[in-house]
């Protein structure tokens, strides 16, 4: 059975802690945290240390300017303004935090109500919240301040309820997203009650954005509170907060500016501390986790065909770039000794070499985490930092891709390679019309005029057999069915008549009828344009139908390379055999368990010493565990990396596992 599941990836709790710690490692986060800590420390300590000095009345020294005795001067009662500003920190921060707490709590209740109350009552609550969101918070605060009366408590409730609608809306949106997920449905089916559903499944999963927003809101509340006190609606004498100190100091702004500037500066500083910290949290936590190289298919993949900020490939040392031989005219892509590595030490692609000529199609097959997608992305120069790409040679249509990235090179890649992704919904911009997105490619990379580009887009949509292309071009991506979207995506990939089409799991999200249509289309488009096709899939049967040649990848290496026509007769790697046997077909024996590849794919960060497939291989022996077999050619156009290739060739059944 599978390896211990708790071996590789850290637990979410641990992940969470490290993500919060990561906030402090950014310059913005560290600065904001330090500032916030200072403000909070002052809020705790200042009243303890200096209340007496701040409140000491000395009528003889009233309304003095700054002096060595009173750094910021004194007020009408002769009290020291400097110490008052320090002492006021506690009340100002306390009120801001309390108001935010009221706002968040009320917002949570209102926002979560629809889930708990059910659809009908929920709609009423949502409508009320939507109405309340339309009013600016400060206006609401003033309104509530009048209702609750002048004073600390009134202002507190006013500020709290004024921030509530924003949080109610935020909560509602977050809850709605979570409530649509299957695990909520599953919990419902398991008979989990609504309250428990909320506390156990929903709240923990929306906590992060709420905390981030609450932090920023605290900053805003601080500012607003100062405003209310300034207007005389908030804190009343003899208590004082920054707003009140500002109001007192403002009377004499021209004669003694320090008394007004100091509380104002305090408000700005403390407000910024909260806001900046909130921003820093949002920046660090709001970004989705960096997907592991061995992550799930289609998850966390790059969204757009944006070539900016890519990890530039470096030439593997020891090679003389001047010596590079001239490509022949049929060559489209040449990859030699390609490596992709990450700073954590994992190398998900290890020394991959292959070539593609005009009109040729090569399929790369393997499980999740085998490095097939990273290989394709590296070729298309779509890998971002921190991925590191190295190769001895990487050449597309005669151009050396190892040369420094330039505008010209990006332009060249944009016209020479077209990419088809697994999920067209993430590759298309959801708010732009399909036709315009296709036209943009032509405008960007071929310098076409708007009208010309649009005509080309419609023509391409027709070529990918989209009915009524003029009408479809004016539609948005969500208005197209899954199969049609994928065809439009292919249309987009071939806008610039590329020499190379890279298709990464183009049919995995489709049902088999749509799959067949898309595959046929891809083949015919490739044949018409005499383009080369690099086809990535986890399904070896599909690769066998589409491609001339198949590269089987395992743990970042090519372990077998052979013509697809010989897949059934000449596959010699146990992994290839296992992949072939794993696909149920219409001829599969129903009385026996399906063949499986036992265990889990190798972790690119912790590869075993010998053959990476050995731990899952029924033929593995001691040599396999200690020595990694090299990829060896057999002289008939096939390559295999296995010590037992001949045994598999003699009896393929040896290599296949069946479990109960």
């Amino acid at each position, binding site marked *: 059975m599978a390896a211990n599941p708790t071996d590789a990836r850290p637990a979410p709790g641990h992940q969470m802690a490290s993500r919060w710690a990561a906030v402090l490692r950014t310059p913005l986060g560290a600065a904001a945290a330090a500032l916030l800590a200072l403000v909070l420390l002052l809020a705790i300590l200042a009243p303890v240390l200096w209340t007496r000095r701040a409140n000491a009345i000395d009528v003889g020294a009233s309304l003095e300017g700054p002096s060595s005795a009173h750094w910021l001067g004194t007020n009408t009662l002769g009290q020291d303004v400097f110490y008052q500003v320090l002492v006021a920190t506690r009340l100002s921060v306390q009120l801001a935090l309390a108001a935010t707490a009221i706002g968040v709590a009320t917002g949570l209740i209102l926002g979560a109500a629809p889930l708990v109350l059910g659809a009908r009552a929920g709609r009423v609550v949502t409508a009320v919240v939507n109405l309340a969101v339309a009013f600016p918070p400060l206006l609401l605060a003033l309104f509530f301040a009048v209702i609750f009366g002048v004073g600390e408590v009134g202002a507190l409730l006013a500020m709290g309820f004024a921030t509530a609608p924003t949080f109610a809306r935020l909560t509602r949106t977050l809850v709605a997203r979570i409530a649509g997920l299957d695990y909520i449905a599953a919990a419902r089916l398991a008979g989990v009650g609504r309250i428990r559903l909320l506390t156990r499944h929903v709240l923990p999963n929306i906590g992060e954005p709420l905390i981030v927003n609450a932090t920023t809101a605290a900053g805003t509340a601080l500012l607003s509170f100062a405003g209310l006190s300034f207007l005389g609606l908030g804190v009343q004498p003899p208590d004082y907060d920054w707003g009140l100190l500002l109001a007192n100091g403002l009377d004499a702004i021209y004669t003694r500016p320090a008394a007004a500037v100091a509380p104002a500066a305090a408000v700005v500083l403390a407000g910024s501390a909260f806001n900046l910290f909130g921003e820093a949290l949002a920046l660090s936590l709001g970004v989705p986790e960096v997907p592991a190289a061995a992550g799930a298919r289609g998850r966390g993949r790059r969204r757009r065909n944006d070539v900016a900020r890519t990890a530039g490939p470096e030439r593997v040392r020891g090679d003389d770039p001047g010596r590079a031989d001239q490509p022949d005219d049929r060559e489209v892509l040449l990859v030699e000794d390609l490596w992709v590595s990450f700073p954590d030490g994992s190398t998900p692609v290890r020394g991959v070499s292959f070539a593609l000529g005009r009109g040729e199609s090569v399929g790369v097959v393997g499980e999740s985490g085998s490095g097939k997608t990273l290989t394709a992305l590296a070729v298309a120069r779509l890998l971002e930092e921190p991925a590191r790409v190295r190769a001895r040679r990487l050449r597309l249509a005669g151009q050396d891709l190892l040369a420094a990235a330039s505008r010209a090179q990006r332009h060249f890649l944009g016209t020479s390679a077209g990419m088809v992704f697994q999920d067209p919904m993430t590759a298309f911009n959801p708010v732009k019309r399909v036709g315009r997105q296709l036209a943009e490619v032509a405008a960007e990379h071929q310098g076409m005029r708007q009208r010309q580009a649009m005509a080309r887009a419609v023509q391409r949509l027709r070529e990918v057999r989209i009915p009524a292309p003029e009408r479809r071009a004016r539609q948005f991506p969500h208005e197209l069915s899954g199969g049609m979207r994928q065809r439009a995506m292919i249309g987009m990939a071939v806008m610039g008549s590329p020499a190379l089409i890279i298709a990464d799991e183009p049919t995995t999200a489709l*049902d088999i*009828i749509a799959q067949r249509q898309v595959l046929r289309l891809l083949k015919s488009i490739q044949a018409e344009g005499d383009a080369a096709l690099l086809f990535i899939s986890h399904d070896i049967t599909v690769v066998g139908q589409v491609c001339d040649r198949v590269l089987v990848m395992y743990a970042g290496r090519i372990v077998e390379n052979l013509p697809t026509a010989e897949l059934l007769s000449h596959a010699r790697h146990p992994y290839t055999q296992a992949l072939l046997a794993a696909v*149920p077909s219409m001829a599969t024996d129903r009385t026996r*368990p399906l063949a499986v590849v036992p265990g889990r794919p190798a972790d690119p960060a912790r590869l075993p010493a010998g053959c990476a497939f050995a731990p899952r291989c029924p033929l593995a022996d001691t040599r396999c565990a200690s020595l990694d077999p090299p990829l060896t050619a057999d002289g008939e156009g096939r390559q295999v990396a296995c010590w037992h290739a001949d045994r598999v060739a003699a009896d393929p059944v040896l290599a296949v596992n069946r479990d109960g």
Partner: protein
Amino acid sequence: MGELRLEQVTVRFGSRATGLTAVDQVDLVVPPGQVVGLVGESGSGKSTLARAVVGLTPLTAGRVLLDGRPLRNGLPAGRRHVRQRPLHMVFQDPYSSLDPRMTAGESVTEAIPRGVRRAVRRAETERLLELVGLPAGSAHAYPAQLSGGQRQRVALARALAGKPEVIIADEITSALDVSTQGTVLNLVRDIQRRMRLSMLFISHNLAIVRYVSDIIAVMRRGRIVECGPADDVLTNPRHQYTGELLAAVPRPGGPL
């Protein structure tokens, strides 16, 4: 027992004039202890039918009966607050069907009916996780630490925790790698036989449905267009659409 019977089940979204009829007067029987494979392309209404049967989507018309007794929202009529549900479902995407903040053990334990002592619940969770072939210690793993196939095993264990009579499996392998798909299919078939569960098994791939099912129903545009014993449907498809589905199954080494 555990005979699931759908009578004229209809699900309509939106208004009568502009709405969409996702499931249109479907009659279907899942005999006790048997697997009915429901096959059709995306958008044919398979998943909507599944959700309607378990009570996640309201029926517009028709009835769902379990052993002759009508169900309301997936529960025996008149018993609104029972924790034990006779129907449970395994979802397509193991990445969204498990709460990322709950361990595998917690997810399974939650589905065990209440009113049982804690120690018993914990033992039952261990038993279920072992039943679906997860290694010891999996109970403490979070979904992020599990592979797609392992997550789907946890989802199956959770579905079994409520001791359901019928399991609805909605495209449970389509989010998995081909290599993992086999292990999950083997497991589902094995457990279904051992526990004599009735099962509605949904997939767009006839090769997969064929492997698991006793009876095959073909769905298109919300309607069942063909239904019969698996061998009959596969060898003598009577509806043209069934033929199309058969032709679309990828054949190793075959033409496109």
